């Protein structure tokens, strides 16, 4: 039973990991851009959450909303002011630019806030639990999974049904040709990056509610996001969800067996999947 509980908890964590990967995967799917600073932006969002928490009415969980809106704006600015200037056939400039940004952001946060471990306090919610079919589960982890599923589904539907979603999909298919339809792909990119950042910010807040973070957590967050996307098969939507689940379960099972292992077994599972199926888990089903 203890193992079933571990696996179920791994799935709950996995939903959050999937959300951590969603922003990175979405940005990659639309723009073929990998924002290496995504992990550090996730941490920055958590810091913003910590500071907005005292002003958040009704329930601490609602701090997600202002942070996501701020992240959307920052993402658009990032794309307009920086990344759009280095777009081109060569991917190296954009990757190095965001790498530089990651270093600035990480060390800036250490400088401003110190290297202490923090978390976002959601009050009693953190300790509430319930029994489900004999399993002891936390309310917060279940809620977080629900939020993750909701965001995946909403994004999916929005991309299918809305006008902007259609333009984003068209831009992802061929950003040169959408220009012939009067669409400035740079604006679409800015919206996409704003969305990617907003999704990442939500993930960052939820991670900070479930666990803790330091200004140095960005690297781990980025690696999780990256592994989710690769396991999911580079840009495959629900593949990423599966990728998150795999990582979450792998990590919790490994921690049960070897409490000092940290993220190591998650990384190893990632490498194993890469060895067995180069196009990720989704690649094994698709096409």
């Amino acid at each position, binding site marked *: 039973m203890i193992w079933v509980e571990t696996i179920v908890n791994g799935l709950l964590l996995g939903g959050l990991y999937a959300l951590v990967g969603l922003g990175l995967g979405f940005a990659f799917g639309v723009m073929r851009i*990998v924002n*290496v600073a995504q992990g550090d932006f996730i941490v920055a969002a958590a810091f913003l959450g910590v500071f907005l928490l005292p002003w958040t009415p009704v329930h601490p969980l609602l701090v997600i909303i202002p942070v996501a809106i701020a992240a959307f704006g920052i993402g658009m600015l990032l794309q307009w002011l*920086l990344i759009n*200037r*280095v777009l081109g056939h*060569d*991917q*190296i*400039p*954009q*990757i*190095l*630019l965001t*790498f*530089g*940004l*990651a*270093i*600035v*952001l990480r*060390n*800036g946060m*250490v*400088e401003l806030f110190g290297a202490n471990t923090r978390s976002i306090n959601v009050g009693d919610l953190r300790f509430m639990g319930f029994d489900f079919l004999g399993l002891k589960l936390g309310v917060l982890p279940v809620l977080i999974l629900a939020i993750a599923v909701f965001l995946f589904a909403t994004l999916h539907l929005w991309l299918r049904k809305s006008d902007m979603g259609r333009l984003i999909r068209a831009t992802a298919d061929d950003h040169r040709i959408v220009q012939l339809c009067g669409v400035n792909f740079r604006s679409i990119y800015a919206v996409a990056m704003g969305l990617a950042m907003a999704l990442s910010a939500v993930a960052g807040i939820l991670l900070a509610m479930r666990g803790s973070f330091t200004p140095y957590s960005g*690297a781990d967050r*980025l*690696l999780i996001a*990256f*592994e989710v*996307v*690769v396991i999911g098969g*580079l840009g495959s939507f629900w593949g990423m969800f599966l990728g998150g689940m795999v990582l979450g379960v792998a990590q919790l099972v490994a921690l049960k067996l*070897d409490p*000092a*292992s*940290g*993220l*190591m077994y998650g*990384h*190893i599972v*990632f*490498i194993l999947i*890469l*060895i067995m199926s*180069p196009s990720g888990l989704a690649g094994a089903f698709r096409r």
Partner: protein
Amino acid sequence: MTRLLLKRPTLVAAAAVVAAALVIATPWFVAEGDMRLMIEIFAVFAFAQGWNFLAGYVGIMSFGQQLFIGLGAYCLFLASNWTGLNPFLILPLAFVFSAGFAAMISPFIFRLRDAYLAISIWVIAEIVRSFISQRDWLGSVSGLPLVATREMARSVVATSTFYYAGALALISVFGLYYLSISRLGLALAAVRDNEETASAIGINVWWTRFFGFVLGSGFTGLAGAVYYMSVFHVEPGGAFDPNWMVIMLFIVIIGGVGTIEGPIIGTAIYFLFRAWFAGTGNLYLMMLGAAAVLVMLISPSGIWGIVKSKLGIDLLGARRASGLEASSKKTRTAS
């Protein structure tokens, strides 16, 4: 044109001889403390040049070259501690081990591209770091000392390490130059610029990239071994520190990726930066990052790129690729 092409390798050879003579003479004129700093400068320059080789010549971007720094160092320390052999004699082992490790992982990571390839190497570095941190026979978190050098005379150790570091620096400049004008160098340039064209003219793209990656990573491992030999102690947190990557990237980006001269400038700037802002901690790292962002926005080809285009100076530019690029573009236009 022909005259220049014929003459330049000879000129470079002369410069190499002069530089080598300078390195050999240094221990007679320089105090041990300064030599230690020079060892560090040479080693860091070699790290940077190893990354530059991969990114600018092979076309593989890696965010995990700290993996090879650590592997090279650990390989040398363990081999010397276990067998009692003189670490200066078994140094090539660090190259062999790192290169072998690179060869082993390439089949898997080469399935990914660009940033994903770059980060997957970082993931492997993290795995190796956590693995070593949890194994007592590998020294766990607190690391390993280099036992053999304790019994040797300090000045012998310092001088020998200096010569190795000097050799690394020389190889990083002149070795890279001769490599870039060799057949392999031209094949690498062709693959980097356009994989389709390269394979169309009969170059095996996969093996060329593989060979470049193995060579560059082996060299980084060798440099890592030399660096940690000069500090006598290696621990996983330091050897596999992603900040090595920050330094390498900074040096190469600022100087100019894909050039030999650029990282020389970058290394000089990095160590000056460090000397001036040593006390400021994170501020100094922030400035490294901000400088990298600025260079990408202003001139992605770095400081040497600006020098080359504004002043028309080209010392070690072996990039005969420009002709290749132009012709590949012509074929594209026609289609």
